[in-house]
């Protein structure tokens, strides 16, 4: 086992998202990970393109954006250290529906979605655990978008 792999296994096991995973499942995940870096301005995802990865941000800042001809880049959400970015890799047809742009130099672990999907298919128990955790992430992000949509601060309240 290489020391780089051990590092990745350590990072994975320390992250709250994977804390509930069994050791062997964490190893499966770490086995699909690689280190990546993005300069400021580089895209992690591009709208409409196939997505084969998700990222665990280790350093830096990432904006999830939608582009509009009249309004430019509309930032929906920003991510930073510790955040997991991207779940399109697990939902067919595995396409991104937004851009994700590094706002600063960003270092991350990239997880190969095809690799994880294969492992999940081969080990349904692992697949279930993985889906369960990602569905929580998806639900959380859905909730946040709902909160954004209702424009709560438009609901006027006197202080």
């Amino acid at each position: 086992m290489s020391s780089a792999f051990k590092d990745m296994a350590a990072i994975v096991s320390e992250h709250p998202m994977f804390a509930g995973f069994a050791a062997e499942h964490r190893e499966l995940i770490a086995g699909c990970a690689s280190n990546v870096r993005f300069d400021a301005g580089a895209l992690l995802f591009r709208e409409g393109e196939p997505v084969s990865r998700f990222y665990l941000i280790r350093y830096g800042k990432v904006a999830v954006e939608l582009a509009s001809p009249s309004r430019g880049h509309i930032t929906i959400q920003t991510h930073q250290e510790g955040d997991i970015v991207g779940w399109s890799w697990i939902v067919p047809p595995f396409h991104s529906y937004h851009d994700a742009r590094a706002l600063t130099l960003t270092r991350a672990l990239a997880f190969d979605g095809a690799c994880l999907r294969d492992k999940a298919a081969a080990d349904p128990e692992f697949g279930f655990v993985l889906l369960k955790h990602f569905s929580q992430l998806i639900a959380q992000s859905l909730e946040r978008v709902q909160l954004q949509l209702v424009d709560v601060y438009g609901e006027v309240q006197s202080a």
Partner: protein
Amino acid sequence: MPEAAAVADPMVPVPYRVLRQRREIDGVHTLDFEPAEGRTPFRALPGQFNMVYAYGIGEAAISLSGDCDDTKTIRHTIRKVGAVTAGLCSLGKGDSVGIRGPFGRPWPLDEARGADIVVVAGGIGLAPLRPAIYGLLAKRERYGRIAVLYGSRSPEELLFLDELKRWRGRFDLEVEATVDHTTGGWFGQVGVVTALIDRAGFDPDNAVALICGPEIMMRFCARELEHRGMSPADIYVSMERNMACGVGHCGHCQFGPEFVCKDGPVFAYDRVEPIMTLREV
């Protein structure tokens, strides 16, 4: 039966004068008031509110937004939402108002001694929390880590920006701000305020959270704090109802068994959660 003659009418305001006023953001003004006649110092606690009377128009319940250690002036940050608040926001130095108060239960700053503090503000909700932040910083040594998490609709609607920057420069305070919407020119975070809770540094087993903002935002934040392991009994929210008399006599601000004016506006979340999730209570 008590001696009625000795009792002052809690419905009659005391005259105050505007000392200064400033526009904070669009539609939100901060006014400082001093007694119109020499009077005893005004003592209030962070989280309490006054009923502020605009001459001939009416009264509005407005939280204190200044430093409660300052007993000479009363500071209110007011959002124009109706005739009374618009009237108040249009006042200038030397103009007169009436004030009744202070009313209600304060933020539990004494009870929170020794704990980490998570302050979560949404929109204008930072105003009622500012006195609490002053109080925490004035006795900084009493508390563990302190995080101030602030969410607003857009960068233009962030309140007390200068002060936020100043607080952010401190080493003993974590300050994070996020906005729901931006189209550029903002280098801070984008997303809802609940996302900040995930990352804030505090020990969920020994923390007290103070939340003020729209009711939906407070519910989402409380849930996020519970998700991080906090007990609902350690989460405090400041409720908004139509407080009118301030003393539990008029009945308007009832919220289940509570009179928001005197049992609140600050409530432990475990007390109000069951009814907060019901409609039209």
